[in-house]
C-alpha cells in the first residue's frame, strides 16, 4: 500500500538508503560550467537590482536611477497616506476575490474530468494547457477586439443576443463588466497550468483509498467520495495552488495595462508602481519603496496562509489552528475526523 513497498526490488540497498546529494568525482569543471551562467544571471538580474532598489528607496531619485539625496523612510511614509496606492490594494483584493476561487474551482473541475477520462487523456490535457503558452498581450487584444468589443457584432454580445439579452457596450468602460473581462482572460490563460498541478495531485492519491471507501459504502465516482477522499488528499496541492494564485493575482499587470488603461478603479499595485517609476513621474525612489512594501505584503500573506492551512506539512497543526480560530469566532468547531477517509 505504501510507496516503500512499491519500490523496485532491484535497487541496491546501500544506494536506496543513502541520503543527500550525489557526488560525482572529477565533475567540478562541469558543475561550474553549468552553474556559473545562472549564478551570474541571478546576481546581475535579481540580487543586484534588489539591493539597488532597496538603496534607492531611501533616497530621492527622480528622473535618475542614481540616488541623489538621502531622505530616510520618507518614501515609505508616503505610501501609508497615498490614497491612490491604497485604492490599488483594494483593486487587488477585489480581483483576488474573483480570480482565485474561480480558477481553483475551474482547474480542479477540469483536472477531475480529465483524470476520469478512459481515453484521450493526454490530448485533453494538452488542449487545456495550450492557452498557458499564449502571451497576455495577444490574449488581451483578442478579448478586446473580438470577444468583448462593445458592438453588437462582438462575440459575447452575439451570444447574449441569442438568449435575448441586450448587447453591452461598456465591457471595458464600466463596472462590473470590466471584471468579467479581466477575470475571464486570466482564467483562460492560467487554468490549464493549475489543472496540471491538480492532475498530478489526483494521480498521486493511492487507489486503495478509493477501494476501501467503496467497501465502506461510498458510491464510486460520487460526490461523497470526492468530498471525503479526493479533497482531503489534495490538501497540499490546494495549498500550493492557492498560494501561487494569490501571488499571481498580486503580480497582475498585463491585462489591466492592456485592457483598462489608467483608471484608478482598475489599477492594481504593479500598474500603479509602474506609473510612478516608469511613467511620466519617473520617481524611482518612491517606486522602489513601493516595490518593497508590496514584497513585504506578499511575504506576510504567504506566511499567514502557510500558518493557517499549511503548505507541504503532513501534520494537522494548521488545521487545529483554523479550528481554534473558528471557536474563538463563536462558530462551532469542525469535527476532528471530518474530511478524513472513512
Amino acid at each position, binding site marked *: 500500500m505504501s510507496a516503500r513497498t512499491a519500490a523496485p526490488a532491484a535497487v541496491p540497498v546501500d544506494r536506496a538508503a543513502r541520503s543527500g546529494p550525489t557526488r560525482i568525482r572529477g565533475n567540478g569543471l*562541469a558543475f561550474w*560550467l*553549468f552553474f*556559473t*551562467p545562472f549564478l*551570474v*544571471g541571478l546576481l*546581475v538580474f535579481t540580487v543586484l537590482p534588489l539591493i539597488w532598489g532597496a538603496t534607492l528607496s531611501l533616497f530621492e531619485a*527622480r*528622473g*535618475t*536611477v542614481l540616488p541623489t539625496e538621502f531622505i530616510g523612510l520618507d518614501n515609505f511614509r508616503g505610501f501609508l497616506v497615498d490614497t*491612490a496606492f491604497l485604492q490599488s490594494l483594494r483593486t487587488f483584493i477585489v480581483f483576488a476575490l474573483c480570480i482565485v476561487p474561480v480558477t481553483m474551482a475551474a482547474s480542479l473541475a477540469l483536472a477531475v474530468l480529465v483524470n476520469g477520462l478512459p481515453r484521450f487523456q493526454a490530448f485533453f490535457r494538452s488542449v487545456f494547457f495550450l492557452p498557458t503558452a499564449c502571451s497576455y498581450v495577444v490574449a488581451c487584444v483578442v478579448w*478586446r*477586439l473580438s470577444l*468583448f*468589443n*462593445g*458592438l453588437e457584432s*462582438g462575440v459575447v454580445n452575439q451570444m447574449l443576443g441569442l438568449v435575448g439579452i441586450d448587447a*453591452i*457596450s*461598456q*465591457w*471595458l*468602460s*464600466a*463596472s462590473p463588466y470590466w471584471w468579467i473581462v479581466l477575470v475571464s482572460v486570466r482564467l483562460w490563460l492560467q487554468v490549464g497550468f493549475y489543472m496540471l498541478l491538480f492532475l498530478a495531485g489526483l494521480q498521486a492519491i493511492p487507489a486503495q483509498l478509493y477501494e476501501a471507501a467503496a467497501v465502506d459504502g461510498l458510491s464510486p465516482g460520487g460526490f461523497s467520495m470526492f468530498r471525503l477522499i479526493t479533497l482531503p488528499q489534495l490538501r497540499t496541492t490546494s495549498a500550493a495552488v492557492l498560494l501561487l494564485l494569490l501571488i499571481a493575482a498580486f503580480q497582475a499587470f498585463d491585462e489591466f495595462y492592456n485592457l483598462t*488603461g*489608467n*483608471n*484608478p*478603479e482598475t489599477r492594481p499595485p504593479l500598474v500603479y508602481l509602474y*506609473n510612478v517609476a*516608469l*511613467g*511620466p*513621474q*519617473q*520617481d524611482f525612489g518612491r517606486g522602489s519603496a513601493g516595490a518593497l512594501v508590496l514584497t513585504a505584503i506578499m511575504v506576510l500573506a504567504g506566511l499567514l496562509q502557510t500558518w493557517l492551512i499549511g503548505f507541504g506539512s503532513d501534520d494537522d497543526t494548521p488545521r487545529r489552528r483554523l479550528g481554534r480560530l473558528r471557536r474563538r469566532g463563536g462558530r462551532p468547531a469542525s469535527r476532528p475526523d471530518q474530511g478524513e477517509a472513512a
Partner: protein
Amino acid sequence: MTTRTRFTRRGALGLGGMALAGAGLAACGGNTGGLTDPGGGGGGLSQWYHQYGEEGTQDAAKRYAADYGEATVTVNWVTGDYAARLSTALLSGGGVDVFENNAIAVDQADQGRYVDLTDIMEPVKDQFNEASLGPVTIDGRIWGIPMILDPQHFYYRRSLFEKAGIAPPETFDDLVAAATELTTPDQKGLFLGNNFDACTWPMVWAAGGSPLNEAKDAVAYNTPGYAQGLAAIQRMIKDDVLLTGAPSDWADPAAFASGLAAITWGGCWALPALEDALDDIGVFPHPAVGPEGRQVAFMGGWNEQVAGNSENIEAAIAYAKWLWIDQTEHQTDWALSYGFHIPPITAVAEQAEALKEGNGLEIATMAAEMGVTGPPEYTGDVGTPRDDAISNILKNGADPAEELAKAEEASNRALGA
C-alpha cells in the same frame, strides 16, 4: 580500425550549457530592445520615431535619413508605448541620438535628457508658427524643433446635420443636444473615445481655464465650466449617447468612418482617410463650455530633439537642423503626403495646396485663430491627479466638482505651490 568521435550524453549537455551561456551573454549586450543598431559611435546616428498610422511614413523617414550625406542615420520605428521606451532610453543612455517627442517636460529638461537647441532655433524662430514654439520653450530656452502641428477638433457628418436641421455646435450644450438628437439604434451621436475622455484636455481651455496660471506656480484647470462640461459627459454616458467599446479608439478614424457615430473627436491626421471614406465630412472646434468658455482647437504636434546622453551631439544637432529647418522639401512631404498635418514653418504651410480649401482651410484657420497648447511646466507629476479625477468622474461616476477640487490640491502639491 577507425577512430570515431563519440558524441556522449555528457558532451551534448556540455555543449548545451555553453550554448546557453553564450545566449545569456549575447542577451546582455545592447539595450535597444532588438529594434535597430544603437547608432552611437562610429559616426552613425540613431533616429527614433513613434509608429505613425499613415501608410508610407516609415519608408519616407528612411528615405530622408538616406538623403543626408553627412552621417549614416538609422531610423528606429518604435512600436508600442513610445513615451515609456523613449523615457527609458533617455534615462539609461545609448540607443538614441535624435528623436521626436510630443511631450517636452521641464523636469526632463532640468535632468539633462535633452540638448538645448536655442543656438540653432533662435535665428530662425520667427519663421515658425507661434503656437508651435510654446510646447518647446522653457524660460526662453528652446529644446525642440517643431516637426508637424496636429490640431484636434470635432468631425461631423454634414448630411446628418442638414437632415436634422442642426448647425455645427458653438457651445457644449449645443453639442450635447446635437449628439442626443442624432443618436439612433444603429448609430451613436458622439464618439469621445472608448474611455469618454478624448476631449477632456482641450476642455480645460474651452471652459475658460488653463493648465497653469500665468505665474505657472499653480494649476488653473479647476473652473466651474470644467465641472459642468464633465457633468454633461456623465449625462451623455447615462443616456447612452456616447459610443464606447469600438474596436479602435478616437485617434483612428475607423470607427467614425464606418458610421458608428455621427460626431467624433479627432485629429487632423485623419482627414485624408475620412474624406476618402465619406463625402460629407465637416469640422468644428471644441465648443465653448459654460459662461466663461471659448471655442478652441487643441494643437498637438511632434518636435525633433537631441538626446542629452548622445555620443554624437554635434552630428545629431546638425542632422536635426538639416531635416527640420534647412531643407523644406521633406517637411512638406512629411506633413501632407501621407496624412494631414500642418507644417510649423509658416512659409512652408502657406505653399501647401491642401491648406487652401475645404476642410484643410477650416482646420488651418481654427488652428491659427483658436489654437491652444500645453505648457512644458505641466509635468507628469502635476498632471496625474487630473487624469485620475477624469477617470473617476467619467468611469466611476464621481462628483465632478469634488474630484476636481481634490485633484487641484494634489496637483498644486506636486507643483510645490
